[in-house]
Every structure is written in C-alpha cells, then in structure tokens.
C-alpha cells in the first residue's frame, strides 16, 4: 500500500517536472512572478510603472506602434502594474521596432530595465537595453 503511494507521488512529481521543463524554456521570472512569453510576444520591464494611469498612458502609446497585433490583449498590449512589465503582441511574420518601443517608453518618463522576445517560439532572447541590440 505504502509503495503504491510512493510510486504515485513519484509519477506526479515526474509529470510536474516534465511540464515545468517544457514551460520553463518559454518563461522568465520577473519581480517574483513566473511569466510565459509566447511566440510573437515582446516583454518589457518598465521602471516607474506602478499605477493604473501609468498603464493607460503606456498602453495607449504602445498600441499605436507599427506591427502590433490589435486582436490580442487590450489593443495588442498587456500591462501588469504590480510586477512592472508590459507585453506587446506582434503580428505574424512582422516584428515591432524595439528602438521605437524604447523611445516611446523613455519619452513618456519611464525607464526600460529589460526586454525579452520569443520570435522563434522556441527560445527567449534577452535584449541589451543599452545598445538596443
């Protein structure tokens, strides 16, 4: 009886580990939150983004940029003020201009701490914010 329970626990644990590894390749931890970044999504960590009215301003500005997929999120942009990040949805086979994104955010008085993309759908790329590469 006891050995059957142990086997069940091991099986469950293995399943969780496999799932976590699968998802883990597409996730990052940001401000104590595990975030999944899907293909054609760009995640930007923004310093100074702490309130809903900051969120409204950034959401409005970012959603007007080129190659945003307007049918995802809220006009293509999701803002999390608790964990201070923005996710932008790109149109299929189009990339948003990261430099324009940086200019829009910094021009609004905020700071970009980090940028992550998942353009292949297989691997998360971390951008160098300082050189915009």
């Amino acid at each position, binding site marked *: 009886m006891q050995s059957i329970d142990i086997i069940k626990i091991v099986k469950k644990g293995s399943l969780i580990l496999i799932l976590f590894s699968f998802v883990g390749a597409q996730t990052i931890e940001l401000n104590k939150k595990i975030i999944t970044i899907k293909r054609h999504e760009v995640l930007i960590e923004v310093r100074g983004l702490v*309130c809903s009215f900051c969120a409204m301003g950034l959401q409005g500005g970012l959603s007007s940029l080129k190659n945003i997929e307007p049918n995802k999120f809220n006009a293509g942009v999701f803002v999390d003020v608790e964990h201070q990040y923005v996710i932008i949805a790109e149109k299929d086979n189009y990339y948003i201009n990261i430099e324009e994104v940086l200019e829009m955010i910094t021009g609004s008085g905020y700071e970009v701490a980090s940028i992550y993309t998942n353009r292949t759908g297989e691997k998360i790329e971390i951008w160098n914010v300082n050189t915009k590469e």
Partner: protein
Amino acid sequence: MLIQKNKNLIKLGLIVTFVCAHQPVMDMAPRWKGGYGFQIRYERFPSYHSLQRGDTKPYHYQNNYYLEGVYTLNRSKRITFKLPYHVVSYHKSDSISNYNSIGDLIVAIPLKKYSNLKRRTQNFGFTPQIRIPVNDRTNIASGHHGLGISLSYSSESFKFYQLYDVFYWRYHDQDPLIGLDINLGIHPYHDNAANRGVFIIWDITSRYKIHNKVILTGPVVMSYHQNIMVRFALRVPILEKENVNQLSKALYTSMGIGVVF
C-alpha cells in the same frame, strides 16, 4: 435686515476660503503627453453651531460644485484649472439667507521631478497658482485675487501611496493662508486586464490663517475603470480655533467623477 444678512454671509466667507485653497486637481491622471481630463466635484459643509457661543440655533449649509480640468504637456508638466460654484444657505431663528455665486477661477501649473526607483516612484513637486475673479462682486468666496505656491513630495508603489503638500496663498484683500495636506493610501485591488481598481486613502487637511486654525481628517475612496474615476471623501474637524465669530464645519462630504483622454 440687509446689513445683518451681509454680516452673516461675510462670516461664511471665511469658511469658503478654506475650501478654495487646495490645488492641483486630479493629481493622479492623466500622466501621458497630450492627455487631458475633466472632473465634476460636489462638496458639502453642513454646520450646526457657532464655535464661540456654543449656540446650536444658527446653522448653515454650504454646497460647492467644481468644474476641474487638466492638460498634461508631459508626465512632469501639467496645467490645471478649477472653477467653483457656491451655494450657501444660512439659517438663524426664522430668517434664511441664501447666496449663490460663481467662485474665482484657480489656474495652476504643477511641475514634478520624478525618480523611477526599483518597484516605486517618487516625485518632488512645485506648483505656482493664481486665483482670478470672474465676476465683479466681492462677496463670500468670489472677487479675491490671489497668488499661491505649493511644494509637495509624493511616493507611490503598487501597494502604497503617500503625498505631503505644503502651500501658501497670498490675497490682495484678506489674510494669507498656509496649508498642509497629507495623504496616506493603500491600493488593495487592481485588475490588470480590465485596468480597474480601488484606492483607499486617509486624508489630513490643515489650514492656518491669522484668526483661523482648522484640521480636518477622514477617509477617501477612489475607484477607477479605464479612463473613468469616481471619488468619495468624508472629513471631520479635529481642531477648530477661531477668534472671529465663525461656524463649525461639522461633517464634510465630497464626491466627484472624472474622465481622462
């Protein structure tokens, strides 16, 4: 009879000057370049007794309606205006005196220096203000030219909000006014997807004139959904000192609705 009525109204005028003192409006929004907004606010000061005589017979109701607006040049530079309309009713024995008037326009330029820190922001503010009469009658709360200045500090994280604002008003025909406002708040609820939530703030409002010292305190609840916000405030006087005959402010209530674009 007319002289007595005017005396009563002049007493009430001392109260109204406190109400008009504070600026800016809509301190929280909008924060984006080219953003603008409007707010309609209603506030009520019922009063039931004289501070000096302890007399419960005379009382008054003072209702103020405000049209407030803001234009944001960028996150650090804004222009605001505030235009009040006063409705005052003074009751004593069998006589009732009423006074309705458009108040003085207050225009301000809030300037803020922001710092984006790890998971919170802070800013130091400097706000020059001007008060301009819009009608010819000098009475209760209208017809008083004034210049004001405000210095503030505010810090905000996702969970907590605090504001300290000290200001000074100088008028051409009455004593200067010094004020200190303190707001300490929490942000217990926010929905990222819908961009809606609630702030709960504890407000302390203090005003000092040569013959007037008042401290009011109480809670403020502010709810927002996308570009619309609703605000409700209650305040009670915890200190009222008055050398000239004046009425207690009793329970202050205020509510407003604002929209930003």
